[in-house]
Structures are given as C-alpha cells and as structure tokens.
C-alpha cells in the first residue's frame, strides 16, 4: 500500500515536467513540421501554394515507397540495405523491357515486381536459413545487385531507341501509358502522389490494424516469444523482405516513368535517404518504433525542408547539415523519452 501511495505522490510532483516531455514526444515532430511550413510561408509566397505542395509530394513519392519497404523490415527487427540496388535493378529492367524488347505494359510492370520478390526471397534466405545478420546479408546483396544491374545494361543507361552495343538501335520506346504513371495527373494530383498515398495508407492499415501487422511487430519485438505463440518467424521475416523488395521495385518503376529512361545506379543515393525518413518517423505521434505514417511524415519533413531551403537560396552544400540535424533532433526526442520512460519503472 505504502508503495502505491508513494507512487502517486511521485507522479504528481514531476507531472509538469513529465507532461512536457510526453507532449514533445507525441506532438513535437508535428509541431516542428507546422512551424517549418509556417516559417517558409512567411518568407516566400511561392511556398504555401497548392502547386508547390503537390510538387513536394511528387518529389518524395519515390523515396517514400523505398522507405515503406525499409519500414517493414525494421518492424520485424531486420534491416534492408539492398533496397537502393533493387530499385536500380527494377529501373533498368522496366526500361529495358520496353526499349530493348518492346514488351506489353503489363509485363513491364509485372517482371520488375517479380524481381523484387526474388531479391526479397534471396535476402531472407541468407538471413533466415544461413543465419547471416540482416545488416550484413543485405549489405552483401546491395553490392551483388548493384553489380548485376550494371552488368545487365553493360553500364549503359537505357533510353528510347538507344544504340546497342551489338550494333543498330533498340526497337522500343517507353510508352505513353507507362510514362503516365510517373508524369500524369489524376483528380488534381500527380499519379505518383496517388500511388504513394495509397501505399502509405495500405501499409498503415496493415501494420496497425490487422492481425498481420500485429504479428510483424511482435516478431520484431521478441522472436522467441512469437515462435512459442505459434508464429512462424521465418515466414514472417520472409514476408517482410519480400514486401521490401516489392516496394523497392515499385520505386524503381516509378523512377523510370518519372524520368523517362532507365538510369543506372538510380537507387543508390536514395537508400540512405529512405533510412533517414524511417528514423525521423520513429518520433511521430510517440510511436518510438518504425511505422508507416511516421515514415511518410519523415519523408515529408525532409522533402519540405529541402524545398524550403532551396527556395531560401541556402547553399546546396549545407543541405546535408540540415538533414542530419533534423535526424538527430528527431532521434534525440525519441530516445531521451525512451530513457525517461525506462528509468521510471
């Protein structure tokens, strides 16, 4: 009894400070976003316009897809470093199917997704069957896939009617329908934004409101306990990596459609950015763990910051400082809070 009373007493005493931290933890990230938007709006008329916002959304659509994949692997306590390479592979494959082989649209969309599934399967084979830790397995795969996709194109980027090394020119072109995916508009929003929003929503619903999501989170939280509760951890990890591979492939297709050619190494620089988005997302609404809305939010914060700062004419070389700073701030809030919470038991 005595203990309990003390508890309550203690709680009341420190409640003001605690509440402040709790508040910061829960709404800090959102408050920050609002503040940033407000700040840029006062400085530039061009910032707070519908056109600019849809453009920002379109600019983050690819990295958000990539980051959603990473989110899934992080949820099961894995980590997928190969998403960048997988995206690159999907980029050149989708472009080459049209340009080199003149394939119909459905194949052009399907095959890269199958490749994503395959990459996910190989990743999870290395991790689950061989037992290589996630980070190391996917790091190796990152190299291998990067090499593969360059070997596939012999180091060339792929564009309409490109000359072939074997002589002659390629027969095909990126079709209009395909380009529409990356460049079209629908109901007032760019198509990539629709795709992104649908995927974010789907991931959110799956992760937070379905049985599957619960199983994914629990597997990540304590794989052993999950196993003894009847979860096949191997299958779950497999699923997460396959989802990650699919998202990476989707990002690659979107990239091709957006830029109208199959650039090599397109995904490499986006990998770290995707990871950063996921981590910023930890701090959203006090989740403290990977979550779909947070990931979207993280990508948005970074996108808005970069957009605003460019408009501000901040030298481009300082961007990384800001990006890193936001990341540190978000992480600090999350983990300082976690420490508080922990020391309270």
């Amino acid at each position, binding site marked *: 009894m005595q203990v309990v009373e003390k508890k309550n007493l203690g709680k009341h005493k420190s409640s003001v400070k605690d509440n402040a931290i709790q508040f910061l933890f829960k709404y800090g990230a959102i408050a920050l976003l609002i503040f940033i938007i407000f700040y840029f709006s006062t400085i530039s008329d061009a910032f707070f316009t519908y056109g600019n916002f849809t453009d920002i959304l*379109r600019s983050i659509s690819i990295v958000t897809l990539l980051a959603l994949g990473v989110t899934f692997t992080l949820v099961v306590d894995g980590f997928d470093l190969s998403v960048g390479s997988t995206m690159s592979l999907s980029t050149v494959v989708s472009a080459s199917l049209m340009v080199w082989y003149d394939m119909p649209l459905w194949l052009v969309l399907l095959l890269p997704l199958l490749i994503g599934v395959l990459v996910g399967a190989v990743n999870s084979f290395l991790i689950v069957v061989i037992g290589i830790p996630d980070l190391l397995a996917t790091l190796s795969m990152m190299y291998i896939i990067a090499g593969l996709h360059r070997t596939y194109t012999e*180091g060339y980027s792929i564009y309409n009617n490109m000359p072939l090394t074997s002589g002659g020119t390629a027969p095909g072109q990126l079709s209009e329908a395909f380009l529409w995916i990356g460049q079209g508009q629908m109901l007032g929003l760019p198509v990539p934004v629709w795709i992104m929003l649908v995927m974010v929503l789907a991931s959110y619903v799956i992760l937070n409101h379905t049985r599957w999501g619960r199983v994914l989170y629990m597997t990540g939280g304590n794989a052993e306990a999950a196993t003894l509760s009847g979860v096949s951890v191997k299958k779950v990890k497999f699923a997460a990596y396959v989802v990650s591979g699919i998202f990476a492939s989707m990002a690659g297709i979107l990239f091709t459609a957006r*830029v109208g050619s199959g650039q090599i190494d397109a995904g490499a*620089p986006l990998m770290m950015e995707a990871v950063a988005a996921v981590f910023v997302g930890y701090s959203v609404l006090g989740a403290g763990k990977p979550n779909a809305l947070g990931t979207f939010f993280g990508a948005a914060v970074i996108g808005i910051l970069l957009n605003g700062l460019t408009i501000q*004419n901040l030298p*481009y070389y300082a961007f990384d400082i800001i990006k890193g700073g936001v990341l540190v701030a978000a992480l600090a809030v999350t983990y300082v809070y976690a420490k508080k919470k922990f020391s309270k038991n």
Partner: protein
Amino acid sequence: QPKGNVSEEETSSDTKAEASDHPLAGKEIALIMQINLGTFSAQYISGVEEQVEKFGGKATVFTSEGDLAKMASNLDAAINQGVDGILIDHGTKEALNQGVEKALEAGIPVVAFDAGIDVEGVVSLEQGDQQMAEMTLEKLAEDNNGEANIVKIWTAGFAPMERRQIAYEKFLSDNPGIKEVTAFGAATNNTALDTQSQMEAVLKQYPNEGEITAVWAAWDEFAKGAVRAIEQAGRTDIKVYGIDMSDEDLQLMQKENSPWLASAAVDPTDIGRIQVRYLYQLLNGEQPEEKVILEPVFVEAESLPEETVTTDKLSEYVDGWGASEQGYTDELRELEGQ
C-alpha cells in the same frame, strides 16, 4: 574559404550593380544541375553566378546528386517559386521536357547545357564533344606518327560521353595504325582514385615499353587518375590525352615531365557565362538561335609557361580560352555596364 591574397581592384567586382535599375535588374535565376562534382562544376557555377551578378540578378543553385527524378522535382520547385529564368545543366530530355514545357507556359525562359532538350523556344548549349574528341585523337596520332597502342578510359551512360565515343570509333576505323589495347572506366563517387588504381593494374599487365603508347581519357577525372598512376609507376613512355579541363587539371599538365600532353575543353567558367547571356537574351525578348555549339579550345602542355597559371590567366597563353564572347549582344553589354 578564406580571402585570397587579392589585389584590391580585382575584388571590385564585389561592388556590383545592386543599385542599378535597368529593366533586367533583380532577376532571379535558377540553375538546375544534375550533378555537382569536382572543380569543373564549381567553376561552372562560379561562371554562372558571376555573369548573373554582372547583369544585376541573383542565381540560385539546385543540385540533384545525379538523381534525375530529383532534378525534375527541382525544376518544378523553381517554376513554383516563380523565378525569372532557368538554366539547366545536364539531365535528359525524357526527364525534363515536361517541366520545361511547364516553365515555358509560365513564361519562364530556359537555357539548357548538355541536356538534349528538344522543346521549341529553349536554347540548347552543347560542347563540341565530337570535335574535342577529334582534336585530342588527332594530336595523339600526330605525336606518334599514326602508330600507337592506346588505352581508352571511357564510360557509357552520359550523353556527352556517348558523343565522344562516336568520334572515337570513327577515328579508330579511319586510322588503322591506332590500336586499342584495352579499355576501362567507371564514373564512381571517387572517379579519379578508382581510375588510378585500375590504371596501376593495367600498367602491371603491360609492363614493357611500347605495349602502351598513350592513354586517351574521355573525361578529365579519368585523365587525372591515369596521370597519377603513370607518374607513380615512373613510366615516362606513356602519354595522356584528355577531354575537359578544370583549373586543377591545368596544374597537373603544367607539372614538369607531366605525361598529360593535351586536352580539349571549353572553359567551364565560360560555359556558365555564355549560358547566362543567352538566358538574358531571351529575357530581353530577343530570339537567339536554338542550338549553340560551344567552341572547344585545344590546350597543349607545350604552349603553357614555366610558372603556374590558373585558368583565369590561361587566356594569355592559349587562344580562345576564357575570353569567349559568345552570347553577347550589344544590348547585353550595355546592361553589364550599368
């Protein structure tokens, strides 16, 4: 960066035409770059900034880390922001055409460099890539009396590279005495050093004099790596011919006994300046030609002086360097004076 040991009058360009109130003053110009790498890019940017300032405007740089999607987004952002003019550096037409059309609709003039954009109303600048390749290859052949075993350092995937390749292939078939021993090359984040390591391995593979006569590098980052590898190996029998030249490269060429004999290039600062001039022509309502070929300059190690010079002094020794008048009109010159 610190303040250099500058004589006073040179800094006077700092006191620019801020106060001027001519009709084209105070324009906001966006420079959309695909990749910003090395001294070449930095000099190019400085050329753009310098010329824009001279016209009393302000330049904003958008870089995209090589990512075309980001480049397209940056183009959108610039348009949304309502800039007065847009400069594009590299990129592909597929990725940028849509944005460029949007810009033109919004009445924003666009000048592109090495981007292959084919939208009506856009002025496109191009380096004379084929010409540069021909210049250096001809020099190579001439130096070796038409008989040479060469190493090609080149990579696919970039429009200018591919144009250079066309000239290269044609040249080889026209000059049967020139033989390609081996070829390699990769544009990495650390191109010069990676090239150096690979070149070292190639030198090991062909250790005897005469097995390699010369190296033809399709890009100065390649040439840099090759030069260092050859120097380190103490090989004096192999010469390097490159394309493109930044200030940094110039220093390498000037070094005593440098294997780097010649390079063909357009002064990167000049490219920036010229591009801005065409943009201001458009802003001024003029209608310049839509395709502009930048005249390359051929720089030979022989013609360089003993003491070190930088690219901004190079014009004293090499004809046509850094003094390009391309793109000027009388009106613009007048503007600059104000």
